[in-house]
């Protein structure tokens, strides 16, 4: 455990960059998928990826290097200072649940759209316009 922590200390900046970079990359990839891909499922996947990126970002900002789990346990009453900020994690949990619901709904809509239109190309779904 300690070794791992030491290793982590060594590459801390790198990991920070990696985490934030991954988050932003996920967001950009998701955006790209949503805006550029024509397939409905790909768009939904894009949305999920974007959400995932944001969630990652959230968790990343709450992280304190070397922190502990945000649990007050007997004998560990003064852990508050070293705790990882619990709020973003709570938020992310909620957001993941919501994202899951949205994705499920989106996919069901995609199925229905495909049934009606026999295509999953978003450019052809514009009977409602102007």
């Amino acid at each position, binding site marked *: 455990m300690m070794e791992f922590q030491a290793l982590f200390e060594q590459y801390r900046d790198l990991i920070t960059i990696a985490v934030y970079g991954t988050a932003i990359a996920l967001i950009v990839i998701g955006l790209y998928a*949503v805006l550029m891909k024509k397939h409905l499922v790909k768009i939904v996947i894009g949305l999920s990826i974007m959400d995932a990126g944001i969630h990652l970002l959230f968790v990343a900002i709450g992280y304190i290097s070397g922190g502990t789990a945000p649990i007050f346990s007997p004998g560990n009453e003064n852990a508050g200072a070293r705790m990882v900020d619990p709020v973003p994690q709570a938020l992310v949990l909620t957001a993941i649940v*919501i994202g899951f619901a949205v994705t499920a709904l989106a996919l069901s809509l995609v199925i229905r*759209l495909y049934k*009606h239109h026999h295509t999953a190309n978003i450019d052809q779904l514009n009977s*409602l316009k*102007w």
Partner: protein
Amino acid sequence: MVITPVHYIVAPLIAAFAIPLLIKIHKDAARIVPGIVLFYNVIVSLFLMNHIAEHGMISETLAGWQAPWGINLVVTPFTGFLATMVSILGFIIWLYGYRFKRTLKGGEVKYYEILQMMMIAGSIGIIITGDIFNMFVFIEIVGISAFSLTAFYRSRDGAEAGFKYLLIGGFASAFLLLGILIIYTQTGTLNMAQIAERMPDVPQQMKIVALIFFLVALGIEAEMFPLNGWAPDAYSQAPSPTSATFAAVVSVAGVYALIRVVFTMFDVEGVNNYLMVMGFVTMLIAEIAAISQKDLKRMLAYSSVGQVGLVLIAFGIGSNLAVFGALFLMLNHGVIKSLLFMAGSYFIYNTDDKKIKSLNGIYKKLPIVSFFFALGALAIIGFPPFSGFWSKFYILISAADEKYVFLIIGILLVTIIELTYYLRVVGRIYFAKQEGEPASHKPSINALVAMSSLALFIIVIGVYPDLIMPHIQSAADALLDKSNYIQQILSIKN
């Protein structure tokens, strides 16, 4: 205090889970229980309004955590006013829709009623919550209910509209999360009062970036141009009571969220001008899009967007009188647009066609509904002596106070556009020659009661606005008194 704000949220949630069970006992439970819940919400609202009139604002904390840390629900005259309005309108819309869906099978009614109830409850949640992330959750609740309801008819267009709404709604939630993220990193709190308190210490750049994310995310909910591509589709494809709910409840909640964030949390210069300009653009584009619509509900949808634009203009002006006008307009728009959607849906029900041209001479078939539609049209344009006039009048007065000559002229010119298309429809209903025999579905008694109560409101408030004005005035005062809001919330320990 017997009744607390949390009842707003708990009652619908319990009901939502209970309905699938209760439906086993009685098949009409799916219809009746939401009504009871919504009516209970009305009682809660009235009780709370009464309470805050005597004892000042309420800030209730959930799960025993004190205000800055725990989630709190806040009822000020402002949020209380909006919550009351939303719950009453929600109940009336339920009353209207009670028998509207009787042609559907029991199971579907269940989903419809639950979703509808959750949408209204979520909207109330948006309004009364004092926590920014909690607001996000409620926005998502409303969003998911709204996406599903938009696609409720399982038709080709319904699914398409639902998907578009969902796509844009997904963006809204993503950006909202990003905004919350930035705010949280800078202030370390999610309580809106505390955020507002700590906001002066936040670096200007961060503040503005966060604000922009909020503006875009909540702009989507508030149907601001160019973020409102989903709105006309969703309004026109959803079942009609849902369209009414979108106009009367969801858009109110969206505007509330935007205003709360802009007015309370942030203190950025220029945001007022931004609201004013974007509001005007929204209104202009929406109304000129509405004028050549061939589909009735789509026309009403664009008109709703236009009204929201006017509300944003008024909030953008930002003076006490302007906020007063804006709140009055939100109320009027909720009432009148509900009435229009309700009446319009009976037209569609009778003609089996959403096209405006199929309304020719429908007056003979549906005299009362036509009357309500005409009344609503006149009221929403802003003709005296109907309630719509006063809100527009106060907004114009407030604009004049700030010497926005061109804004006033612009608003009035747009009103002329609005007038044109509404009166074309009214003219068709009453005077065009009827072609073919439309089916005859007379409005049911509950729908008539719902519509008459709205019509009565329009006329009574139009003739005697003093009835409602003190409440709106105190709501406007409460919104603008930001420091009081912060102090109260952070000091209430109960």
